[in-house]
C-alpha cells in the first residue's frame, strides 16, 4: 500500500492527478434522480473499444484482396486459435452497437435531453449514428461472401435514384460500373481507417460537449422540470447535492456493461448465426444472384421504404427528409417542457415514428 501511495504521490507532484480526480471523478456530481438509461453511452464507448480491439486482431489475418478475402476469413474462422471468437465478437458487436445506439437515442428522445442548450450533443450524436451505419455497411463487404457482394450491390445501387449525379455517384462508390475488387479496396480503407478515426473524433467532441454543458436532469421524479437557461450566455448545469460520478455512477456504468457483456456473449456463444444467412458462407459470385437479398436488420426499414414508393427517388427523398428532421429535432422542438407525459403531441409523434420504423422493418423482413 505504501508503495502505491508513493507512486500516486510521485504522479501527483508532476501532473496534479488528485486535482483531476477530484474535479472529473469524485467531485463530478450527477443529478440525484439519474437512471440506468444514462449508462447507454458508456456501454457504447465500451463496444467501440471492443470493436477496435477485435478489428485490429482480425486485421492480422484478413487479406483485403478479392481473390483472397473469403479464404482469409474462412482461415480465421477455422484455423486461427480463437479466431472464430474474435470474428463472432466483431460481427455480433456491430449489430449490438447499432441496437444500443438506438436505445441511447430513444432514451435521450423520451427524456427530452436533446433540447437547448444540448443541440450540439444531439447533432454530434446524430453524426455518430450515420458513421456507425457507414462503418457497418462497409464492413459488410469485407468477407467477400455472396451476402457481402449482393447486399453491397443493392445498397450502392440505391444512389442511382438521385437525379443527374446518381449514376456517377454509384460509379464513384464502387470504383467501377459494378461491385468488384476496387470496391473492396475503398470499402476496406473506409472501414479500417477513415470511419473509425471519424467516429473517435466525433466521440471526443460528443464527450467534450457533454462535459461543457453538464449532464441533463431527467424530467421524471422532479416537480420542477423547467429549464432555467435562457440562452443568453454560457452556463454549466451543475448538480449541487447530486451523486458523485466515481464511485457511485461509475459502478452503475460497470454494472450495465457487465449486463451488456452477458447478453452479448450469450449471443456470441449460443447463437452467433442470428446475424448470418447461408449466403454469408458462400464466396461472392457476380454471375449468380441469390434468391433473397436483404440488408442487415437495421437497414430493413430503409429498404422497404425504397420499395413502397413508385419511384426510388421519392423513397430516397422521404428518407432524406426523415433523417434531416431527426437531425434538426432540437431546433424544431423549441418548447421548454421536458416531461414526456405533459407533451401529448410529442408522445404521439415519437411513438408513432418508432412504430412506423418497426413496422417497416418487419414488412421488409417478410416481403
Amino acid at each position, binding site marked *: 500500500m505504501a508503495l502505491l501511495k508513493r507512486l500516486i504521490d510521485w504522479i501527483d507532484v508532476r501532473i496534479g492527478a488528485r486535482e483531476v480526480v477530484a474535479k472529473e471523478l469524485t467531485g463530478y456530481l450527477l443529478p440525484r434522480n439519474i437512471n440506468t438509461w444514462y449508462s447507454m453511452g458508456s456501454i457504447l464507448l465500451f463496444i467501440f473499444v471492443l470493436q477496435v480491439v477485435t478489428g485490429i486482431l482480425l486485421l492480422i489475418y484478413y487479406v483485403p484482396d478479392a481473390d483472397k478475402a473469403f479464404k482469409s476469413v*474462412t*482461415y480465421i*474462422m*477455422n*484455423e486461427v486459435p480463437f479466431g*472464430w471468437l474474435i470474428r463472432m465478437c466483431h460481427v455480433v458487436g456491430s449489430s449490438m452497437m447499432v441496437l444500443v445506439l438506438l436505445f441511447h437515442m430513444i432514451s435521450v428522445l423520451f427524456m427530452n435531453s436533446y433540447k437547448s442548450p444540448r443541440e450540439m450533443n444531439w447533432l454530434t450524436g446524430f453524426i455518430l449514428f450515420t458513421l456507425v451505419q457507414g462503418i457497418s455497411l462497409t464492413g459488410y463487404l469485407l468477407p467477400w461472401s455472396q451476402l457481402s457482394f449482393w447486399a453491397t450491390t443493392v445498397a450502392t445501387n440505391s444512389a442511382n435514384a438521385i437525379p443527374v449525379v446518381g449514376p456517377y455517384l454509384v460509379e464513384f462508390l464502387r470504383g467501377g460500373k459494378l461491385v468488384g475488387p476496387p470496391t473492396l479496396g475503398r470499402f476496406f480503407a473506409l472501414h479500417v481507417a477513415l470511419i473509425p478515426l471519424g467516429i473517435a473524433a466525433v466521440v471526443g467532441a460528443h464527450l467534450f460537449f457533454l462535459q461543457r454543458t453538464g449532464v441533463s436532469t431527467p424530467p421524471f421524479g422532479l416537480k420542477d422540470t423547467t429549464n432555467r437557461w435562457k440562452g443568453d450566455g454560457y452556463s454549466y448545469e451543475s448538480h449541487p447535492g447530486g451523486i458523485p460520478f466515481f*464511485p*457511485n455512477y461509475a*459502478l*452503475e456504468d*460497470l*454494472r450495465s456493461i*457487465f*449486463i451488456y*457483456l*452477458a447478453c452479448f*456473449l*450469450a449471443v*456470441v*456463444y*449460443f447463437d452467433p*448465426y442470428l446475424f*448470418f444467412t*447461408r449466403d*454469408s*458462407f458462400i464466396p461472392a459470385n457476380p454471375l449468380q444472384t441469390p434468391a433473397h437479398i436483404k440488408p442487415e436488420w437495421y437497414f430493413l426499414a430503409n429498404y422497404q421504404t425504397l420499395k413502397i414508393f413508385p419511384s426510388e427517388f421519392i423513397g430516397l427523398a422521404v428518407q432524406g427528409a426523415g433523417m434531416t428532421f431527426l437531425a434538426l429535432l432540437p431546433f424544431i422542438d423549441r418548447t421548454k417542457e421536458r416531461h414526456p407525459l405533459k407533451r401529448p403531441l410529442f408522445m404521439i409523434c415519437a411513438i408513432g415514428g418508432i412504430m412506423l420504423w418497426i413496422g417497416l422493418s418487419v414488412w421488409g423482413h417478410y416481403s
Partner: protein
Amino acid sequence: MHLSAHLFILFVLLLPMSSFAAEPAEIVCIQCHSTMPGKIGEPVKLWKGSIHAENGIACNACHGGDPKDAANAMSPARGFLGAPKEAAIPAFCGRCHVGVLKDYLASAHGKALGKGGPTCVTCHSNHLVVKASLDIINEKRCSQCHSFERARVIRDAMQETEAMIVAIDKRIAAYKGNGVDTESLEKSLFAVRNRFHTLFHNVDVGMVKKESAGIQADLKKIQDQLKALDDSRQKRKIAGAVVVSAMLLLALFAHLLRKTFD
C-alpha cells in the same frame, strides 16, 4: 410505290418471323416425330418424362443425325445411327456412361449379354430413361428374369450405406452453413459416394456386401470427423455458459458495491 408502303409490307412480312424467333426452336426430330402416331411418335412422349430430357440430352445425342436439317436429319452421312440391336445396347449407352459400361460388363448381367441377360434398357427402359437409384432394384423389375431374393439382399446392403451417405451429406451442409471449412469433408464424401456408385451395376451378393462394409468404414471416418466438430461445439457452449455466468456475477457484484455508496 411510296417508301412508307414498302416499309409497311416489309413490316407485315417480318412480323410472323419475329414472333417465331422469340421461342427456342425445337429440334427437327421432335417436330416430326411428336405428330406421328404409334411406335414412331411414342419415343418423344416417353423421352419428355426422362432424366435425359431433364438434363437436356435430346434424340441426336444418342441416335446421331442432324437435328437442324429436317430433310437430312436421318441421313447416315450426317452420323445417324438409328436404333441399336439388342446386343449392341450396352455399347450404345456406354459411349457416355463409360464407367457404368465397364462395371456392367464385369457383372453377371453383362456376362449374360446376348444369352438372355438384361441390357441397360431392361432396367432403365429406353426412352423414358429412369435415373439410377436404389428404387430401380425392385421386385417388379428384377423378377422379370429371376426371383427377387438375391436382389433384395443386395438392395438392403446398399440401402443402409445410402442412408448413411445422405445423413452425412446433411450434417456437412449444416456445418457449411455455419462457416465451417468443410472442403476436405466434402471431398472425402464425394470419393466415397463415387465408390458406392460403382456397386450399382455389380450383382455379386458377396462382393456387394464386402464392398459395402469397406465403404461404411470410410463413412465412419467422416462421421468421426463430424463427431469431433460436434464435441468442439459442445465445449464452446460450456465455455459460453461459464463466461455468461461470470458476467452476471460481476454485474451483481457491481450492483451490490454500488448500494454501499448510497
